[in-house]
């Protein structure tokens, strides 16, 4: 070796040493690496394990397939996709899922789009009030409305308390009571706020000067609408559609309540059925399908959003949002908004509330009203002997909800901020990119598929990790992973907004890393931290799909408790529990908005 190459090697070694010293000059990188490992385990490993499940012989199937458990096989994929029963296992649920999703989006778009415009760009009466009132469904669990629907329209083909219409002597046909029609309508009502929020936001930001410039050059209203406003609004509209679609795909509660009685399966309920009948292999195939649809939708969305970025710089300074005058249409427009409010908020909630205080459905005599289902004792004819507020099961479930979801939310809020910090600060960009993407990944995986993945990974002991199924830990881990997209996004954007300067100022003043975290970063990010904990908490308590797969009676939470009451056909109590959940979710959201002075809509688009 010549002297030149030796010194070259020394130079390289010194350079490497220098880089290492820089990378580890503060704990950011170390924390980043630990976080990356944690999320690889919480997010990537379960999904890989699920994929593997779909391709290997599951325990209990060895005789049917004729090989050892764990051997590679196409049996499940075959069974789900090509076998004689593939129709009822996969293709029909897939078709149902897609037709429900498209139908729901079509309805919610055609109602939510005009409402968004009315609220953000016109002089409709009571715009401010509607802006809040119409997004209430967004804060409630989706199947609240499914329960309200079945309270009203349930017919005699299912046992338990009658629906109101049936009680009044009108038997609703099955297609009104169950299956595709009600599921589509309920999901549509649920996604209207989505369009009001996302599309309305884009409309609000649209600069009237752009419109004016076109007018000055001689464009008439339709040219302005089709050539200027339309093209600029299209990306955000597309984005809203796709996000609603992705949410629709994983929807579990609504089809469970309204589809199961007539065997109307969606992919999510099919998956639940497979898992509860111990067909984990087929369940894995279904979960994969749900995941694939979610991923495709989100990739399309990413593309659309990237397109729309091109428009972002337009209309920054002097942006004006002018409102059109509705003229003679002002009252009809207001009437339309009121009608939607009544149908999507007032009527369902009122129905649910009344159903919990009436003995016999649809009998409005004073004597028929009772508070027994809430606070009664020694009830003879229903599944619980005491009213719901006096039931120890309810309080156990509430306590479980609080501490399981609370702990998970606290962890994900802190982890989110930490991820945000590392992503924004680490000098090692692959680490930053990996963390950013891995924490966002669960967003593409509907909760029910994710729950299936967790079940597949943690059902048995693996290495040093004991079997977690049946413990609260599995719920917490799954919740944390499921909530990371929101938490990390919140953390990243908070850290981006903060910028480097305040921290660097402290650094120059002589503060080491821990001191900077404690005295500068965390105090400034207090608000972001609160949101980062509170929002996952709200989505966690109203969430159903994770729990329905992963919870056992010992870890019953409010949502699964309510679901069980439905199974017992004790709908008054089920409705009461859902109302309790809705109240917590609603007031929690309001509190979060008050505390942080933010708008729900801002956190949605990201």
């Amino acid at each position: 070796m010549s002297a030149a190459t030796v010194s070259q090697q020394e130079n390289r070694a010194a350079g490497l040493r220098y880089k290492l010293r820089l990378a580890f000059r503060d704990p950011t990188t170390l924390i980043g690496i630990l976080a990356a490992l944690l999320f690889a385990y919480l997010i990537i490993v379960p999904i890989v394990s699920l994929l593997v499940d779909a391709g290997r012989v599951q325990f209990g199937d060895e005789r049917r397939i004729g090989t050892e458990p764990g051997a590679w096989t196409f049996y499940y994929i075959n069974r789900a996709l090509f076998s004689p029963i593939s129709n009822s296992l996969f293709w029909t649920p897939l078709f149902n899922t897609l037709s429900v999703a498209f139908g729901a989006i079509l309805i919610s778009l055609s109602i939510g789009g005009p409402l968004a415009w009315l609220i953000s760009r016109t002089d409709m009466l009571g715009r401010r009030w509607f802006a809040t009132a119409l997004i209430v469904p967004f804060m409630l669990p989706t199947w609240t409305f499914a329960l309200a629907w079945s309270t009203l329209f349930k017919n005699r083909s299912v046992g338990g308390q009658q629906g109101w219409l049936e009680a009044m002597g009108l038997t609703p046909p099955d297609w009104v009571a169950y299956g595709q029609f009600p599921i589509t309508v309920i999901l549509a009502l649920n996604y209207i706020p989505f369009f009001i929020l996302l599309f309305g936001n884009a409309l609000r930001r649209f600069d009237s000067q752009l419109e004016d410039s076109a007018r000055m050059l001689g464009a008439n209203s339709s040219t302005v609408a089709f050539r200027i406003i339309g093209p600029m609004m299209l990306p955000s509209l597309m984005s809203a559609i796709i996000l609603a679609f992705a949410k629709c795909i994983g929807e579990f509660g609504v089809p469970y309540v309204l589809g199961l009685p007539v065997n109307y399966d969606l992919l999510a309920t099919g998956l639940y059925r497979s898992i509860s009948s111990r067909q984990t292999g087929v369940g894995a195939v279904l979960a994969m399908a749900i995941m694939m649809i979610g991923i495709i939708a989100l990739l399309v969305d990413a593309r659309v959003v990237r397109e729309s970025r091109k428009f972002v710089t337009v209309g920054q300074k002097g942006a004006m949002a002018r409102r059109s005058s509705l003229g003679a249409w002002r009252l009809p427009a207001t009437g339309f908004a009121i009608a939607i409010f009544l149908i999507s908020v007032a009527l369902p909630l009122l129905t649910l509330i009344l159903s919990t205080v009436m003995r016999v459905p649809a009998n409005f005599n004073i004597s028929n009203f009772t508070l027994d289902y809430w606070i009664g004792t020694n009830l003879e004819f229903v599944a619980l002997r005491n009213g719901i507020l006096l039931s120890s099961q309810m309080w156990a479930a509430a306590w479980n909800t609080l501490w399981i979801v609370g702990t998970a939310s606290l962890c994900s809020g802190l982890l989110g901020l930490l991820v945000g910090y590392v992503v924004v600060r680490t000098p090692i960009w692959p680490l930053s990119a990996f963390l950013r993407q891995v924490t966002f990944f669960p967003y593409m995986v509907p909760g029910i598929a994710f729950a299936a993945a967790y079940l597949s990974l943690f059902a048995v002991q693996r290495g040093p990790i004991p079997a977690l199924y049946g413990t609260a830990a599995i719920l917490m881990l799954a919740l944390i992973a499921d909530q990371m997209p929101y938490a990390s996004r919140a953390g990243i954007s908070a850290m981006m907004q903060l910028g480097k300067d305040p921290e660097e100022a402290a650094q120059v003043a002589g503060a080491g890393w821990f001191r900077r975290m404690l005295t500068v970063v965390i105090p400034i990010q207090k608000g972001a931290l609160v949101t980062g904990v509170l929002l996952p908490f709200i989505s966690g308590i109203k969430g159903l799909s994770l729990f329905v797969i992963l919870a056992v009676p010992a870890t019953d939470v409010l949502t699964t408790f309510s679901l069980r009451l439905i199974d017992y056909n004790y709908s008054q109590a089920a409705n009461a529990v859902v109302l309790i959940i809705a109240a917590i979710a609603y007031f929690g959201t309001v509190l979060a908005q008050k505390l942080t002075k933010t708008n729900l809509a801002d956190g949605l688009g990201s």
Partner: protein
Amino acid sequence: MPTITLRNAEKSYGGTAVKAVRDLNLEIGDGEFMCLLGPSGCGKTTTLRMISGLEHLSSGEISVGDRVVDCVGTGTFVTAEKRGMGLVFQSYALWPHMTIERNTDFGLRLRKVPKAERQERVEKVMKTLGIDKYRDRYPSQLSGGQQQRVALARMLAVNPEVLLLDEPLSNLDARLRLEMRAELKRIHEEFKTTIVFVTHDQWEAMTLATSIAVMSEGELQQVGSPNDIYDRPANRFVAEFVGSPPINIIEVEDRNASALAGLAQSYFARTYPQIDGIGSVGMRPEALGFARDVRALPKGAINGEAVVTGVLPTGGSWIIELLTQQTKLFLTTHLPPQVNDGEKGFFYAKPEALHVFDAQGKRHIGADIQLRGEADPSAEGAAIRALA
């Protein structure tokens, strides 16, 4: 107090070949008020951040006194918090969740200065900067100028040996800026701190600095006193960047380039045949004169016919726009001009006021030579730079 030395300092970002700072050698002496001056994107802020330790080098070395603080070759890197410097950010970067007083005493608390001394020092620096009455307010309740003072107070409170300032005046209005300039100059004299100041504003640099380092595209162009920079620019970039209205440049490399180029070439061929390879000639606006009559022209001056195309008052002085041989020239004067638009006459510049650059334009090669104009051989004016 220490001298800051940068040796062959280089910085590139994200493995790209583009260098934000290239082969920078700079010495900042004890007690100096050094301005890093250049257009945006020239690497001046990067240089400042490398000195502070917030940014690391890609190659080269930085030392403060005898202590090497950053050296890629030996793998040494002292983090910003251990360098004991002060840095005032362009955005001020006040901590929004702390009162003015807590912002100011942050550094002293970190250094565990006893309470009595801490209070005394904070008091003093807040009084000096006139922010003591806002002590219990939060940064968002202060105006830009007040925030700027807090940012300064926060750094001065710990009495750093080196104070780094990153365009701290750029967000202030004109009057406040003037006030703060005076304040900074006073602070420099009072605290005897070494100050490194980044700015793109030439007047700020001229009025404040004891020496100026002009940078362009990551490269150091010239280091010198403000007068050096203005009167003896090392190259065309410096000559053109400093001065407003900008220096008048005549390209003479190709005599056919313009009629004025031909004029200048024949002037130099006639008067200074010993100078070879002239690329361009610069004339500061205030060194130009205008004469109505050919007989009023000073001897030995370069001159040519010109038409007045505009008289622009700037308050106390005037800019006169001249058109000569299809080339526009700017002339400034502090005497009320006795000319009108469209008037014909002659422009002239005395030989000692000419700046001569070689064909490479930017780069300065060759030594000073004295141009011996017939007009005044012993002119005390600036030396003229040219090829020997």
